């Protein structure tokens, strides 16, 4: 009798542990999904708000290459503040 009782208790304990593990995994997965949803919603909103202010980005035609300017120089009809020339 004591042996049967002991086996029954072990089975109950295993079942309980599996249930706790399942609940923990489900809670974790739900948390990840919720966090992703929140990030997407707010990320999209933030990006939409930033978009009009964003300047064109500098980039290079090859990874790690010489970076081209965000915009090429524009013509100026006014006086200059500084001179770019050799020194």
């Amino acid at each position, binding site marked *: 009798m004591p042996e049967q009782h002991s086996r029954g208790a072990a089975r109950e304990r295993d079942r309980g542990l599996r249930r706790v593990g399942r609940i923990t995994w489900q809670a974790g997965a739900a948390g990840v999904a919720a966090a992703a949803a929140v990030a997407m919603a707010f990320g999209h909103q933030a990006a939409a708000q930033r978009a009009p202010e964003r300047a064109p980005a500098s980039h290079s035609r090859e990874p790690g290459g*010489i970076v081209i300017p965000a915009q*090429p120089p524009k013509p100026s009809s006014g*006086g200059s503040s500084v001179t*770019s*020339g*050799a020194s």
Partner: protein
Amino acid sequence: MTTDAPGRDSFEVFGTTAVLLVTSPPAIGLARDIAADLLAEVDRACSRFRPDSELSRLNAAPGQEVVVSEVLADLLSAALRAARLTGGTVDPTCLRALASLGYDRDFALVRAAGDMPPRLTGTVGPVPGWRRVHLDRHARRVRVDGGAQLDLGATAKAWAADTAATRIASQVGCGVLVSLGGDVCVAGPPPDDGWHVRVTDDHAAPAGAPGQTVTISSGGLATSSTTVRAWRVGGRPVHHIIDPATGEPARSCWRTVSVAAGSCADANTASTAAIIRSAAAPDWLHDLGLPARLVRHDGTVETTAGWPREDGPEDAA
């Protein structure tokens, strides 16, 4: 952005002129302090005319591993980046070639010497090459092999302009333009109509000198020329832009090239390489998407990649 006249300051550095402009005029004093501190650091690190500079000590220790400061490690990184991105057209191992032409002292002394006697009967030959420089950037260890001697003049000024502009914009919180002998970098929010920059042969030229005025709002603008840092050796005209393939001053169809890029260092790399690449430069710049203005010896102008066009040969201001 602002429409007020910018605050302005200028001072002598590296044998040339530094100009600072800030969109918040009261900030000009702080901007100058930040720039002056950085430029003093750069001078201590890489002046080849100071026997106590780190670069002089490195050049005096061939084949030995030397631990260098953060600033010199950054400057060496910038020089090696320029060499890598140009396939070795802009090479820091050109010190012996420059010295053989008599440019082994401050340029004011070279100019004052007039026509210098030739030091060699033949040519120097190709420079040792940038692959002789072994830099561990993380550990700040560098070793220079193969008898190479370094001159960082092609890239140090531009790197300093970029770094000064970035630091000032970050610490002062306004728009800034830094020009070091004509190597220009802007950072922070620009004035409403951008920064107006005159491009011409000589950064110290008077306002009426031939050239073109443009506006930029970000990044860098640099000009390289064979006409300014030029002197004579044995009656032969020479200049400071060395072609690594020959160890001689570059024979270029362009007298002056100005380039706009994402940084002053990249603009300077491209303008120097364009002088050396000569007739091949416009296609190279076009392929890279770099706006540039190239001036032939007769004053006619070619432009690339969206640089604003002008009519006919160089205009006057």
